[in-house]
């Protein structure tokens, strides 16, 4: 929906370029990225490994400052990490000294929310990820899929403007991943969060995204954008989806080859 005077874009990225120093060498991560993410949209970014897709996510999260260009979230430039842009990390970063509940409540506690209200919020989101029976479990007692869901609940509890997901399902087995794809769509349906989802799995991207953005190999630029107009909830095996995934894959294949060549050359 469009309201006059209100930017319909959650995230607006203009002319973004970034490089970092690795072992004394300048490595160009992304070059001239222009991207707009609408309110309540799921945008997936795919690209060969090392294409800077994680860098892009870190820049939006505010862990790094861009060398060039700007990132606006709700019209405000990103200066530092903050709970309006919560990251679901690939390695989760759940705190092992806290219970599942403690992890979900963490951001609220930091924000100074009262204990009673914290409990309520934690319970609501643990229910949303179907883990309300595991509130008081310790992190190491949970399975990989459960940990992933706790991390999701922990992020949602902060009620962020945008959820940044960095290959969150990579470490899971295929069945669990399928299941979480459905669950994430269900959660999106309930919360209508804006989600930026980085992955190297093309089918995953097509399943989740309203749009899938293909990035080039090093340095990362936006190569092509695909719109996925299929009804939800989608399943990774849906025929229409496989069709779209194939054309995305075609676009990506050349980039993967380039990335491989470059890696071999460097060694």
């Amino acid at each position, binding site marked *: 929906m469009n309201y006059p005077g209100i930017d319909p874009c959650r995230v607006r990225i203009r002319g973004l370029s970034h490089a970092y120093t690795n072992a004394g060498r300048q490595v160009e991560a992304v070059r001239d990225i222009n991207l707009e993410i609408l309110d309540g949209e799921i945008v997936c970014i795919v690209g060969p490994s090392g294409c800077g897709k994680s860098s892009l996510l870190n820049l939006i999260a505010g862990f790094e400052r861009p060398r060039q260009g700007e990132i606006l979230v709700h019209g405000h430039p990103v200066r530092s990490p903050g709970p309006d842009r919560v990251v679901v*990390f690939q390695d989760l970063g759940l*705190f092992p*000294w806290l219970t599942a509940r403690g992890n979900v409540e*963490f951001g609220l506690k*930091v924000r100074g929310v009262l204990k009673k209200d914290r409990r309520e919020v934690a319970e609501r989101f643990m229910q949303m990820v179907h883990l309300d029976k595991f509130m008081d479990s310790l992190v190491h007692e949970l399975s990989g899929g459960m940990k992933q869901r706790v991390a999701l609940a922990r992020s949602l509890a902060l009620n962020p403007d945008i959820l940044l997901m960095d290959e969150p399902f990579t470490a899971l087995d295929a069945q669990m991943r399928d299941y979480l794809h459905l669950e994430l769509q269900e959660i999106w349906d309930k919360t209508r969060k804006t989600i930026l989802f980085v992955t190297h799995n093309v089918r995953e991207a097509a399943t989740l995204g309203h749009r899938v953005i293909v990035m080039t190999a090093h340095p990362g630029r936006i190569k092509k954008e695909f719109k996925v107009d299929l009804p939800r909830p989608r399943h990774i095996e849906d025929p229409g989806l496989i069709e779209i995934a194939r054309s995305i894959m075609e676009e990506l294949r050349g980039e993967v080859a380039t990335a491989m060549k470059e890696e071999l050359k460097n060694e």
Partner: protein
Amino acid sequence: MSRPLRQGLLFLGALAFWEFLVRLHLWPDYLLPSPLQVGRTLADGLASGELPLAIGVSLRRTLLGFGLTALAGIAFGITIARHPRLDDTIGSLMLGMQTLPSICWFPLAILWFGLSEFSILFIVGMGTFFSVVNSTVAGVKNVPPLYLRAGLNMGAHGYVLLWEVVLPAALPSILSGLKQGWSFAWRSLMAAELLFVNLGLGHLLSVGRELNDMSQVLAVVLVILIIGIAVEMGVFAPLERHLRVRWGLQKSLSSVAETAPARS
């Protein structure tokens, strides 16, 4: 066989061996008294109030010296770990200082503070301080960056990040430093009390030597040993176990042991 039973048997075995040595009459009574004799001295000392007083004084000194310096050591360690320049300079100095037995501070303490209670606390504190500082520095520096990122991302900054993320994440390392610091403190105290003429268990030990009373010497040694073991088993072991269970280290260790292939 249950663990307490095994430990009890070991203890009885040691007593029996001691009694056996005494019965061989290789050494005269006044050099190697029997367990029963030492037990009687122990009971007399407890009844007369002499031992409880000494235990009280020694424990108070350790707790005070250990407690205050441990707190200071944790605070100092965090400061060092968070400033690379301090870590390069003072950090390596701290590592060096840890190798100095704290009783070496004895002459300095006497000259600076005289034969006072503060001198003893100073020596005990010097035993504690460096191991707590060093383990805190190591613990804070080893906090996985992912935890810091996650904390920052959820809105924790500055002192909140320190209190809610850095300290809990560094706690296992800090605890092992506290444990080491405690044992250094206890040892330094005994050494200091042997040299000072001023109450405490170490003092009783030195009185025993002066009176040629081997039975008292052994009784006091037993008390010192028992207190050391009691603190280890009653305070540090449960704390460490609690941490291991919480972090899931206990489980992984035992399950690794269970699934480890048998050596051929």
